């Protein structure tokens, strides 16, 4: 199981999901321009989402861009 913690306008949500679901969620988040960071501070990229380990705690950060 992977713990996903999402920052958002409605406050933080924390869900524990199976590895395959987590990979799918992280991919969707990254495609929308967001950032995913593990508790150890490793940034997850689109091409290495599969390296997410079962038991990882991942922070999903909304996209920020220059204005």
């Amino acid at each position, binding site marked *: 199981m992977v713990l996903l913690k999402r*920052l*958002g*306008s*409605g*406050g*933080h949500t924390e869900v524990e999901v199976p590895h395959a679901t987590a990979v799918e969620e992280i991919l969707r988040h990254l495609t929308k*321009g967001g*950032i995913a*960071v593990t*508790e150890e*501070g490793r*940034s997850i990229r689109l091409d290495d989402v599969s390296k997410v380990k079962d038991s990882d705690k991942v*922070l999903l*950060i*909304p*996209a*920020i*861009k*220059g*204005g």
Partner: protein
Amino acid sequence: METMEIRCVNLRGYPTEEVYICLQETDGYKRIIPLYRLLSRDKLTKLDILFRDCRIKGDEWLNQIGVTEEEILSLYFASPEGKAELLFRELVDLGLLPRPENGYITLKSRGKTYRIEIETLKLFIDGKEGCFQCDEELPHFDRLIALCLTIIHNPEKLEIRG
């Protein structure tokens, strides 16, 4: 515990555009507590009266409206704003974000120095003020976390002009 300094500030989108916040000095930055979201209507009305009569000195306002610092902090840390600050502190303790100093966070990424004023979220890139935006309306400290992690992991995103 540090004094809670009350302020009446203008905020767009609120009926009177004047709301109450309080500031508390904490570990290297000022905590901004949105009283207008946390206190009941009757306590806010008492603050209106105190402000109108100019009877506010130091942290006397707490006694005057019948609330303690502990109660305010407990309401704050149960709110999205307070939870965002707790996560910010957790990430600082984990070493994922730098420790704030004198109200600023300083980060170096890909040869540039980024400095963020925590109270206002003003961003300075190599000394020049820069802009950023987030499509979501995030609590103050969530916005700070998102900005810091973007600088650390994807600073090129801040160069995109949109």
